[in-house]
């Protein structure tokens, strides 16, 4: 097991994870357009993902432009009662009302056939939200300075853009004792894991980004 190969694998992973290299059609869960009609159990094709997004967000365009509503991603609907149909679940977050919306699109009829919405329930953060969480972190005086210093130490030069950081966000749900993050019970809050160019990850475990309030919170423990 040579170090060279390990480094090459890590490099490929970094490439795959880079923010701007994987668009919707190329992301891992999108089927790479087979030269046939998809069978019911095939993953959604890139074209189906794009179409599902358009159909699901058709009535929300104004709110999406204003930034109140954010489209997250599409998942193939796996309800076995509709296993013979091509359906997609579009995940949408309404920041204005702090509400998760899941719209089920029937790709055959081109219509939204079901909608579920609720507060206090969170779907995983999207790529766009990861990037925004990084921007908020960098805009914060104390945290921004720490991230930039760590980046400069690892890369040997200054950070130019959040896109240069490897980002992974996970939903943060407050536990009863997390007093400083109590609002995260109803807000959309994430823990942001930040990878530096040397393959190490910053210790950001006490840091929570409240995307609803656009605030950085520090956990007390």
């Amino acid at each position: 097991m040579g170090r060279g190969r390990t480094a090459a694998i890590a490099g490929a992973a970094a490439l795959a994870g880079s923010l701007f290299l994987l668009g919707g059609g190329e992301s891992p869960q999108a089927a790479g357009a087979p030269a046939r009609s998809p069978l019911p159990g095939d993953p959604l094709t890139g074209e189906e993902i794009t179409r599902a997004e358009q159909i699901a967000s058709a009535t929300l365009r104004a709110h999406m432009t204003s930034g109140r509503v954010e489209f997250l991603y599409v998942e193939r609907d796996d309800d076995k009662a509709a296993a013979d149909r091509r359906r997609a679940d579009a995940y949408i977050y309404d920041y204005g009302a702090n509400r998760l919306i899941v719209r089920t699109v029937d790709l055959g009829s081109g219509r939204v056939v079901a909608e579920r919405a609720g507060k206090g329930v969170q779907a995983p953060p999207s790529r766009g939200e990861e990037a925004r969480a990084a921007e908020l972190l960098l805009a914060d005086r104390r945290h921004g300075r720490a991230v930039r210093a760590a980046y400069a130490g690892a890369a040997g030069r200054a950070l130019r853009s959040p896109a240069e950081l490897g980002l992974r966000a996970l939903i943060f749900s407050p536990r009863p004792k997390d007093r400083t993050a109590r609002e995260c019970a109803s807000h959309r809050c994430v823990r942001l894991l930040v990878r530096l160019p040397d393959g190490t990850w910053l210790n950001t475990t006490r840091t929570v980004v409240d995307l609803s309030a656009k605030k950085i919170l520090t956990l007390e423990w």
Partner: protein
Amino acid sequence: MVTVRLPLLILSCAALVAGLTGAAHVPPAARASAAQAPSCGAPYRIERTLPGGAAWRLCWEMRTIEGLTLADVVYTPVGGAPISVLRSTALAQIHVPYDSGEPRFHDIGTLGENAVVLQEADCPGGERRERFVCVTVRPRGHAYLKPRPGEPNLSAQGSELVVYAAFEIGWYTYLVEWAFSDDGAITPRVGATGSLSGFTAAPEYGWPTKRGSTHVEQSHSHNVFWRLDFDVAGRGGDIVEQYDFTGSGTARRALGRKVLDKETAAVNRRTRWWRVADSETRNADGHRVSWEIGNSDSAEYRGPDDEAFTRADLYVSQYRDCERLATVNPAPDCAQSVDRYVNDERLTDPVVWVGVSYHHVARDEDADPMPTHWQGFRITPRDVTAENPR
């Protein structure tokens, strides 16, 4: 041994074929399940006949949230007919609490977005599907070995079809793997590799790594949950049973069987196991075909009150399409964690959730790149065939 392969057999001629071959170990319901065409096509369909003659067929999908998901899993024993096992299975959560109490992570975010591109060396002897999934076959040691007086030993080497992907979640790389053995067994497991987090703690919550005793790497658990929607011998008719053996400090041990006819949260016991059987289909010996679930390798993590999902090792819930993850379930109008899926509802279409914990106390050898540590469980055929399927 008569070899019966009926992949496209339609129900109407099933009885005729059974009569011609005398293949009593090809029950009608199994034929019905075999008649169903796979729901997916290339490159998402995996069909592999293993060196000994057994075959597996399944579909894979890289889902945005759950990552690698397998569906329509069908096993064909040597000389037998195809029989379905699972409608779908995927990871349902990786909960990572650290021993000092914080931090605590729920590592399933958009797992599918974090799949690692596999290089050729990462998929030895196999084929990579769409860069992220490896499909390969590997040996599994002796399938059996029996000395025979005056004759060569009766022995065979087994093999298994393996399907896996890797996901980079912060410090960890998770290898998410299912092995489908030529004897009909399925081994779902997760390996954690990559790097230790480097989180430090007071000495009672960790182990000194690196030089001296100043860096105490914090101990932690990986509590992995799987969701398994069984379809034993075709759709419908699945029943779940729990087996226990009484007698402690006694010479006798009596078998106790309990049908789980309502949603249940069950804990492990040393000799306890479960099985999912089909209520209609029997093998040639007249016994119900089933797959058994054993889960005795878990470290059985039990968390605080607000983590009630850690208080049992196996849950059985009635199928509900919105119940996908064991915690932080991303569905409005739906319960948020597996312990809340269990509400005493009568089971007509059971979904099984298995939790396996691994407690990691770091050691010097875990220095970067951290050696893989594995956790998983076994799903073994029980009375699917009337004899050793070889």
